[in-house]
């Protein structure tokens, strides 16, 4: 575990600005398959969805979960300068969930004029942050990244009741351009109002306006979305509450990141 957090904090300290997080994403080579086969994945940290132009994504905490709940191990893992690449052989019928869960504590404080920063476990935080640190702010972070690939017919997806999660009225591997979809966001299993959601269609390099879509969940935790054009979409949902797991932190920052593929009519 410690290893993961070390890498995570390294990845974050390497991004251009810490208060300003870059987006991150994993994109499968296919999301809909008619026979078992290999799928390859690209994973990176960048401002522009699905364009690798910044940093590779550290994928130590990533899992690929088969329709029967077993885990598939990625093969041919390669961490390049700009992207991470891996393959997975999808042999069962049904929907595979790729997920990356990262949680920990983020601390900012001042030593003299110098801004100090820490990311890691609650135990490590207690050791690293000096007693009586000035302007100390501690936030618990709970991040979930997902993407889905289906062999044959889509199968029902289950939520875990932990952190920020999404339930869609249409299966994520059954999206068609122009059809409305309802997204329900859950915080620890409960539909929650006021979650901020941003969606961007990929290939922003080829248009002048990114056409970013912004939503906020209603009292039932829902937003209604129409994805007018086929393509890959990047979704980022964020929410802050006070349900912390350790007294060290005052608030909890929850994030959910998803890659969706929408096919033409």
């Amino acid at each position, binding site marked *: 575990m410690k290893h993961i957090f070390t890498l995570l904090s390294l990845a974050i*300290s*390497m*991004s251009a*600005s810490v208060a*300003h997080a870059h987006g991150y994403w994993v994109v499968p080579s296919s999301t809909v398959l008619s026979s078992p086969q290999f799928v390859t994945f690209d994973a990176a940290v960048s*401002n522009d969805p699905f364009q690798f132009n910044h*940093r590779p994504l550290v994928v130590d905490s990533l899992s690929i979960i088969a329709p029967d709940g077993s885990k598939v191990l990625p093969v041919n893992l390669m961490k390049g300068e700009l992207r991470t690449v891996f393959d997975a052989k999808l042999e069962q019928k049904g929907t595979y969930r790729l997920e990356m869960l990262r949680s920990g504590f983020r601390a900012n404080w001042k030593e003299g004029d110098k801004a100090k920063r820490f990311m890691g476990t609650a135990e490590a935080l207690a050791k690293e942050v000096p007693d009586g640190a000035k302007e100390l702010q501690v936030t618990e972070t709970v991040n979930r990244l997902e993407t889905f690939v289906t062999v044959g017919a889509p199968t029902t997806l289950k939520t875990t009741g932990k952190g920020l999660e999404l339930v869609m009225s249409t299966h994520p591997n059954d999206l068609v351009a122009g059809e409305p979809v309802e997204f329900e966001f859950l915080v620890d299993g409960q539909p929650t109002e006021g979650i901020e959601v941003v969606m961007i269609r990929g290939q922003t390099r080829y248009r*002048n*306006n990114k056409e970013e879509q912004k939503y906020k969940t209603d009292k039932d935790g829902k937003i209604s979305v129409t994805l007018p054009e086929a393509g890959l979409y990047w979704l980022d949902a964020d929410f802050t509450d006070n349900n912390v797991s350790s007294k060290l932190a005052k608030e909890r920052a929850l994030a959910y990141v998803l890659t969706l593929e929408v096919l033409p009519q």
Partner: protein
Amino acid sequence: MHKWVPALIPTLVAGVFANQAIAGEINLKVNIPQINTAEYHRPYVAIWIEKPDQSVEKNLAVWYSQKKATNGDEGTKWLKDLRQWWRKSGRDQFMPLDGVSGATRPVGEQTLNFTEGKEPLGTLPAGEYNLVVEAAREKGNREMIRIPFTWPVQKIDRAKGVGQQELGDVILELKP
């Protein structure tokens, strides 16, 4: 041979008047709009004078990040996002451009004055031109505005371009 001779005459005339301290002026007001977003970065902006064939006659200003990111990325890494400027001029330049390039500017009205005979405007052959302003913002959009004008300036003139996203009003004032 025939082409440049008539084009030279106004320059020569301007040269005569230059002795009497009369020099054309281009005054620009470029508005950088306030954008409400969780993560705002000042836009990169390039301003240049374009010939009717859309080639670059003069670079007037290039604003880009002068900071080196903690991962070693230079601000020049994203200059190519000023796409038109990059392919027409930027890629052939060595940054920084003396008297032209500088740091990104904050939200609000940015005023620029250019005087004939002084760099970066220098001398401009008589003819039809466009003033071009291109802006691109990290995690934002890209926009370009063209304002046509004729040189040399006969009388005080004013033209406006209206931006939609990354640029507000761009006001071009010409003085003989």
